[in-house]
């Protein structure tokens, strides 16, 4: 009797466990799957049969998406912003992290702590000053304005990740190199920077994804198509594609591809970066 009771509870727990797991699986994936499938339908199919597969897969939606919305230009803008930000951010963050993790000097810890405290600041609350700064610098409505803003916003997380990684590198290599006449700058460029590659990949991936997906400041700091990024462009699709809804969905799928591809290849790096960021913060 007692044994039977325990197995009953076990079975119920097991079923409950899988319901929980599958529920979240569906909540996270179904909207995306639905979006991708619907982006291959005709508008008629979209309106009348929301749950069916397309009779004929309409690849033409993707062609239309590129033609109608200037998608290519938006895409190029996003690539420029995301790549430039990632590169600049990694270079300056690793320079600072190198000094902060390697050199002893007055104020070292204070500077590090102030930099890291940046993650606590709600960037959203700084809309007024950011707008003023960018306008005053004369880079309103320019890709450069977005690049410098995103580069700065990501300093705390990058310095944190790269600093943590550099601290774990043994100092012996550098000491040997100094004996051989390696200068201060060469210690960074020839030894520490190359060795930090795994940490740079993690930080760089997070920065890239942030830039690609950023919406609020792309909206605030630009006002015309000449500096519009993809995420902002999608917002305008709504008015462009009033009659051709499925092509808009195709455009959205295209906008998601880069980060999803990055995620497929680097998800371990991304998850480890996120994890050590939060665990230590």
């Amino acid at each position: 009797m007692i044994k039977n009771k325990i197995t009953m509870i076990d079975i119920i727990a097991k079923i409950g466990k899988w319901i929980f797991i599958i529920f979240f699986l569906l909540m996270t994936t179904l909207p995306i799957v639905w979006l991708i499938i619907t982006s291959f339908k005709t508008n008629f199919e979209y309106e009348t049969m929301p749950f069916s597969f397309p009779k004929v897969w309409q690849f033409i939606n993707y062609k239309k998406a590129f033609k109608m919305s200037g998608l290519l230009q938006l895409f190029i803008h996003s690539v420029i912003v995301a790549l430039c930000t990632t590169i600049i951010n990694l270079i300056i963050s690793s320079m600072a992290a190198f000094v902060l993790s390697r050199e002893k000097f007055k104020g070292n810890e204070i500077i590090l702590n102030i930099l890291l405290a940046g993650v606590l600041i709600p960037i959203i609350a700084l809309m007024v000053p950011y707008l003023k700064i960018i306008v005053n610098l004369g880079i309103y409505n320019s890709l450069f304005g977005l690049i410098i803003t995103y580069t700065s916003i990501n300093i705390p997380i990058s310095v944190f990740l790269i600093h943590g990684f550099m601290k774990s590198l043994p100092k012996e290599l550098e000491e040997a190199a100094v004996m051989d006449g390696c200068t201060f700058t060469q210690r960074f460029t020839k030894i520490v920077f190359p060795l930090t590659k795994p940490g740079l990949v993690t930080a760089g991936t997070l920065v890239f994804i942030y830039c690609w997906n950023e919406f609020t400041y792309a909206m605030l700091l630009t006002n015309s198509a000449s500096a519009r990024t993809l995420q902002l462009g999608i917002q305008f699709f709504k008015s462009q594609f009033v009659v051709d809804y499925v092509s808009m969905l195709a455009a959205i799928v295209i906008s998601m591809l880069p980060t999803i591809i990055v995620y497929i290849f680097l998800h371990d790096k991304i998850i480890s970066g996120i994890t050590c960021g939060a665990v230590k913060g």
Partner: protein
Amino acid sequence: MKNKNMGKIIMFLLPVVVLYGLFFIYPLGFVFVTSFTKWHGLGDMEFIAFSNFIKLFSDPVFLLSLRNNLIWALVLGFVQVPLACGMAMLLSRRPKGWKFFRTVYFLPNVISQVALAMMWLAIYNADHGILNSLISLFTEEQFTFSWLGANNTALQAVIIQQLFYIGYFMVVILASRVGIPASYYEAAELDGANIWQQEVFITIPMLKPILVTTITLAMAYGMRHFESTYLMTGGGPNHATSVMGILLYTKLEARKYGMGSAIGATLIVFGGAMIAFIRHFLNRKQLDL
């Protein structure tokens, strides 16, 4: 202590320090100073002491936004994080495919809020949204309810859109759970503790620090919430889904920069106070071991 490389050190720190000063320290000071002024962007700022704050806290729309922020913070902190923790505890027992689930749950975190909002607009759409189509399968007439357009469902709808994206907190908690030594569980098992007892008496107390951290983070996110609501409802209908971030943006568009800064300052102060309070409260409350 004098470092002979001081010149080089300053050179290496300079770019980060300059940008950090320009985009973190200066803006913070700017927000607090201008929150006491009336300023339309051009011309001089007019010092008006606490007028902006007095106006704000007697404005029903602001109070509603603040309330919504608090609801967001509480739901994220005390519903989303526990769900994430439950999932982390399940996956830590390594059921079949746990790595796959972990990867998939985190996926929405790499997709833009814009794309996610578009998807959910299609789900909540009154005429041919997925949700209404699903309900229509069980009703005789076509079900057409505007989930985001009705005063009494809009806030729930925008919160649910975010609520089930537990991936971020789940991976963080899971990493911490994996760090608990297996020997604790082996010892408990020898003492005859079943899985439930192990989870309650070992896992949860051991996870306490990370739970405090994630709840704090989640509540901070609730206070800064902006994008997905802005994209789905713009704060409507009748400000039912408005949050401080959205109100700040509308003030900015209306060139009421002083007022915008006052909202920003309130957001920073409330967010900071909440973090301090929650950390203090959760750290003091002892969990029995």
